[in-house]
């Protein structure tokens, strides 16, 4: 593993140490829409934490806040004790070099080959020789099972493979902390199983901390050490998968059991049934 002196150095210690990421009373929104209201949660070191919740509930927002791509309007987003929102551009970039992020569809650079994609962070941030870069890239690709695809372009590989390449790229600089944005969305069962296995193995073998934002109940509950469920603007549940499954919170209950009715309504807000179908309804060209 490479160690580089930087401003936001993380320490890798046992899970008894303080959490790697902590959100304290964070409020965030766009315009009048509040997405997170006084949200507090912790991400323990060395574990796989799942972030779940209804669509638009703020899961991806939490990732963006941790990565410094968005700034909280109130509260603190602490990365190993340092407030991300208060960091300068240089500090932020130093912090980002210690984390990896996997975007939903991979976000590979379409004008480069698979090899060049994985080599990108190495070439940008290190002065390693071409031979060393080649070795590291091939090792990362080997870990995700795509060493043979190294000369292909992103347009030539499937979605599942693209995401694995993105994982190799996120791992290129041996980060201590990885965020996965919907790693299971749209994958076939084989790829799904493989991805989940990869996430778990990498996390344990390298002592990483992983955050997974996902909708897939089954796979995520199998994989995660800790589950956080976000309701509209608040944390509805936080605990081990079993604890969450047993929760009495109505929102959590609806979510975990995949029920159509519950705190999250089935029908979108609109005119009442009488207005649309009743005798007083004026039928004008479809509306």
């Amino acid at each position, binding site marked *: 593993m490479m160690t580089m002196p930087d401003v936001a150095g993380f320490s890798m210690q046992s899970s008894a140490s303080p959490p790697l990421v902590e959100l304290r009373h964070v409020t965030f929104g766009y315009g009048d829409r509040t997405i997170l209201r006084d949200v507090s949660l912790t991400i323990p070191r060395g574990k796989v934490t799942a972030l779940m919740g209804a669509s638009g509930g703020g899961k991806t927002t939490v990732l963006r806040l941790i990565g410094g*791509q968005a700034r909280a309007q109130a509260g603190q987003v602490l990365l190993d004790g340092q407030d991300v929102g208060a960091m300068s551009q240089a500090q*932020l970039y130093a912090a*980002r070099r210690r*984390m990896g*992020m996997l975007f939903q*569809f991979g*976000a590979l650079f379409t004008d480069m080959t698979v090899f060049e994609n994985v080599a990108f962070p190495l070439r940008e941030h290190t002065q390693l020789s071409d031979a060393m870069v080649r070795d590291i890239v091939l090792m990362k690709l080997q870990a995700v099972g795509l060493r043979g695809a190294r000369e292909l372009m992103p347009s030539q590989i499937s979605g599942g493979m693209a995401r694995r390449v993105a994982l190799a790229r996120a791992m290129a600089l041996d980060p201590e902390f990885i965020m996965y944005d919907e790693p299971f969305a749209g994958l076939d069962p084989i790829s799904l199983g493989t991805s989940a296995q990869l996430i778990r193995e990498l996390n344990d073998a390298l002592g990483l901390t992983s955050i997974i934002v996902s909708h897939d109940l089954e796979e995520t509950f199998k994989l995660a050490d800790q589950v956080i469920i976000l309701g509209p603007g608040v944390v509805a549940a936080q605990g081990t998968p079993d604890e969450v499954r047993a929760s009495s919170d109505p929102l959590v209950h609806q979510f975990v059991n995949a029920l159509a009715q519950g705190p999250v309504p089935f029908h979108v807000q609109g005119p009442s049934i009488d207005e649309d179908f009743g005798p007083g309804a004026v039928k004008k060209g479809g509306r």
Partner: protein
Amino acid sequence: MRWWHPADIGFALRSKAAAVGQATRLLLRLVAGLGYVLKRPGLLRDQIHFLGNYSLAIIGVSGLFVGFVLGLQGYYILQRYGSAEAVGMMVALTLLRELGPVVTALLFAGRAGTALTAEIGLMKAGEQLSAMEMMAVNPIERILAPRFWAGLIAMPLLAAVFSAVGIMGGWIVGVLMLGIDGGAFWGQMQSGVDVFQDLANGVIKSIVFGITVTFVALLQGFVAKPTPEGVSRATTRTVVMASLSVLALDFMLTAMMFSI
């Protein structure tokens, strides 16, 4: 927007002003990106290849045909006053002062400008720019700045090629096809064209146009909505805005440069 509502007008004006501010900030960061670009000349070289070499065909062919037409029209008009031999000077001045920089800029906006906008817009839609940011690489320096400086360098060269090819086109039509004396063609041209007044001003114009077109293209791609319609609308906006800006700037520059 309810145009009679002061709040809506105020909001619209504020968002327009914010957009202008954002654009200015981008321009400054692109200019400041020169330091980064000089450290990574390979990126610049690749972009000059993409913007310059690939535009050469359309610029060359267009220049040739424009030269043909200028030669033809010029001959018909001038020979009525017995000054057919001045065709060379007319073609050269028209190209160097106006058509060279302007037509090249318009063609560049259509060919290279739309390619830039689409590329950046699609990168934005595919979250590639975000991914780069999360890997602690500044996408403005790494992706946008090399393209900006490549456009700035490529445009004057393309305009020079356009003018040169156009003059040759005028020569082909005037001397080879219409029988004007070759010596008079070049002689009149040399006496009428001033290196500083005409050629240098034309080069300055093409540099200004290069900055304008490339910046508009990059800006539209950068602020495009990350959807298919968003990108397509952005490319249209690039062509329209870049073309209008070039024509407006041409008028202002001409007034400044060629005033007596």
